[in-house]
Every structure is written in C-alpha cells, then in structure tokens.
C-alpha cells in the first residue's frame, strides 16, 4: 500500500533492485562485486542448511526431518498429546496472506509493534481508527514502560562506552550519590524508556 506513494522513478529503482543483476534498468546500478554465480550460491546455501540440520540432529540426537529419535544423550519418548500440557501440541501457521486477511487475528499490527516497538506505523494506509489505536497503544504501554531498568539492562548485551559517561555525569549531578539506578530511573518515570541516557548526553 505504501508503494502508492512512491514516485515512478523510485518505483523503477525498486524494480531494478529486485531484478538486478538480470535486468539492469537504470544507470545508477553498479555491479560492485563481480558476477554472481547463482547456482554456486544456491549450492552454498543448501550446504549450509544441511550443516545446520546436521548440527541440530547431533545436538539433540533427534532427526527433525523425519521426526524420529536416535540414540544419544537424550532419552526420547513419545507421549500422547493429552498426557502433556496442551501447550506442547503441534500447531499450524497459515500462510501470511491468509493471516492478514483473517479478522480473527488482530495480531498483525500487534506483531509489528512487538517486533519493532519503537516504530509506530504498523504498515498499510492507516484509517482514523488505526491512528487512534496507535496513539492509545503508546499511551497504554507507557504504563508498562515504567520499569526503565529493564530496558536499560537489556543494553548490557551491547554496552556502549557512553553508558559509562552517563554514570559519571550522574554522580556529578545534584542527585544523591547513593541512588541506585533503579530509584533513579523510577524518579524519571515520565521519560519514555526509549530515550536512553546515551541519547540525552549528546
């Protein structure tokens, strides 16, 4: 739907990029890495896939392709589905096209949010109701956003050097030096969690 807004030249570029390198459409296209051997790449990908499947099979001594256990560290047993929590039972996911058309699954836009909480537009041309929904959702979420330490802690996977600057600056602040990061963040609760200290310092 968003494609509608693209100018014709942008569209052309898009098409060109998709079909590249088979049909070079614009003069902007450059073959930066030499010709691609599609057969070779396909073989490489397939080999990699086999490697992954083989690794999974070894790790769990279970053949996921045939759904059969093998000998190894894991002692497999097959149990009737009604003898285990229903959660473990097999499910089917329908194709994405039928998914989005399904009125029973308002999950589509929820998922967009879920996958990319910072981006507010769920995709598609928004009707007024949808816009309203996005606004409301943000408002609703702001309550649960309050535990900023959560978000902050997530960052520790990926520590930035500026994280340490923030600490130093905070110590120099008029704030009590004994403040734990938790109370610190709670006291700033109206600030959305997305606005990290890293950004504020700049």
């Amino acid at each position: 739907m968003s494609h509608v807004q693209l100018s014709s030249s942008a569209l052309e570029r898009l098409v060109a990029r998709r079909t590249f390198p088979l049909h070079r459409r614009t003069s902007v296209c450059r073959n930066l890495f030499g010709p691609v051997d599609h057969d070779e790449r396909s073989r490489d990908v397939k080999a990699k896939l086999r490697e992954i499947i083989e690794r999974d099979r070894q790790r769990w001594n279970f053949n996921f392709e045939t759904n059969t256990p093998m000998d190894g560290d894991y002692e497999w047993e097959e149990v009737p589905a009604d003898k285990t929590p229903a959660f473990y039972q097999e499910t089917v996911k329908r194709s994405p096209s039928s998914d989005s058309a399904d009125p029973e699954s308002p999950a589509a836009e929820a998922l967009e949010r879920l996958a990319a909480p910072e981006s507010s537009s769920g995709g598609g041309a928004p009707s007024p109701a949808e816009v309203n929904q996005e606004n409301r959702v943000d408002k609703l979420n702001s309550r649960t956003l309050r535990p900023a330490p959560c978000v902050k802690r997530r960052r520790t996977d990926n520590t930035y050097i500026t994280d340490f600057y923030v600490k130093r600056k905070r110590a120099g602040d008029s704030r009590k030096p004994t403040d734990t990061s938790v109370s610190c963040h709670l006291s700033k609760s109206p600030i959305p969690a997305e606005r990290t200290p890293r950004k504020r310092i700049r």
Partner: protein
Amino acid sequence: MAHCTSLQYEPVAEIGGGAYGTVYKARDTESGKFVALKNVRVQTDQNGLPVSTVREVALLRRLEQFDHPNLVRLMDVCATQRSDQETKVTLVFEHVDQDLKTYLDRAPAPGLSPDRVKDLMRQLLCGLAFLHSNHVMHRDLKPENILVTSQGQVKLADFGLAKIYSCHMALTPVVVTLWYRPPEVLLQSTYATPVDIWSTGCIFAEMFRRKPLFCGESEMDQLGKIFEVIGLPPEEEWPAGVTVTRKNFAPVKSRPITDFVPEINEQGAKLLLQMLTFDPLKRISALNALDHPYFHDEETSTLTNSSSQAVEKCSRK
C-alpha cells in the same frame, strides 16, 4: 519405536478430527532434565519462511537470554523444510509436567491455600511484568498456558508467537476459549498489554473457585456474563467505533465480587477488581499489581525461596 510413528503422525495431524497427536519428550541423561518438542508447521511461499515468523523466533531467543524464572525455557529452534509449501519449525522447550489447569484439577478438596494462590499470583505477575516491559503481550493467557513445576514454580508459555498461534489451529480438537478474553477484545476494539491483566484476573478468581469465572459460549454471551459481575459500564467508558452498542446489554449493576469468589480476602478482592476493570486504561498494570497491598500481607512472609528470588530478579530487571 519411533520409525513407524512418524508415518502415522502426519495423517493424524492433517485429519485433526478427534484423534490426539503425540509429543516427543526426552530426558537429558547428563542433567536429568526434561525437554519437549513443539512443532509448528509454517506454510511458506517461494520466499521461504515468512519474515514475521523469523522475527518472532528472534524475539523468543532474545527474551530467553534473560533467563527469567517465570518463563518456560526455550533451548533451541530447529527448522526443516518439508515441501515447497511448508517448513516445520521445531521449538525445543524445557518440559514441565503440568499446566495450571491440571494443577487446579488435581488440588485436593478444599482447593489451594490462600498462601499458595498468592505465591502463584506473584510469580504469574512477575513473568507478565517482564514480558510487558519488553513490549510483548501474551494475548492468550489461560490456565493451559501457565505451567507449574513440581516445585510449584510458575512458568508462562506460549507468548511471543502471537502470529503463529493466533489462528489457534491446534491439530487436536481444542475449542478456542473466550473465557479469559477482556471486553476490549470481545468488542473488537483496540487493545494492548492490559488484555493480559484481565486474563490474569480471571485466573486469579479461578484459583479460588477451581472453576472458570466467566464461561461464555459466544462473544456476546461472554460479555453478558462479565457484566453480570462487574456491572454494565457507563456510556462514557464504552469504546468508540465498535459495532456492538451498549444498548445490546441489560443495564445490570455490579455485584460484590465476593459473591463469586467467597474465599478471597479483602485485599485480594480489591486487587481482583482492579484487574477486572472494564476500561483498559484504568486497569492495574502488572508492575503495580505486584506492589498491591495484597502482596504485602503478613502471610507473604512464608514465601518459598524460589519465588522470592524470582521477585527479586523481576524487580532488578
């Protein structure tokens, strides 16, 4: 044993009428722990796995890194292509013997003790607060999706796969339940994380009652049953732009919640009402619920070690 069963499995799954499938579980002979496989058959096109599925799996793995005590462990994700139209994604989860549904069914006669209910509720809210703070809604919280270990530890399951599970095409003849759905979902209005709090409220009541609180047979019936307890909400709280109007329902007044959950104590009843609030914006959040006086009572001091650690971990994150 297994070679013939794989042949058997597919037809059973495809017919889906009446017969139950099977689940593979295994004991790790080194650690003694159990794992179980959950298969998700994903329909694909020439582009392979849908991006949404890849995202969901990535999200699950990211959440897993926190090792939250109240979420079911996801050990691995293995994908195998079945055909051009289908890829099988196998999720390797820790295996927990029972869910809250069987746990409640098996509880001896007088039901769970108030302390037990409180402990379970605290752990449930703790897991939920974690999910919500990571922008994940569960959307389908019900006793079947809440696992309880033999040590009484609560582990939420079935979250983060909204799209995968949204169609509810379990291959066994499981009827999609409306009983834990909040009014805004039943009315097809907008919704967000408060949906899970509504479901939690229903489950809270069920822990005392040992039977569901609202057993509707259709969306309208479900709403009617809800209003019989909480009363018909005022006009100004009715969501705008929904097709079902307020006039469709009898103007019933709210009844004391203790009429329906007589075993609950005073603070518990207050918390329950804050969870079963019609307006999602006025409904209590998971984090605030954990801070409710219900959890401050003296009887809380008998917390099990595991759950107090869980709470600690929860508040640290």
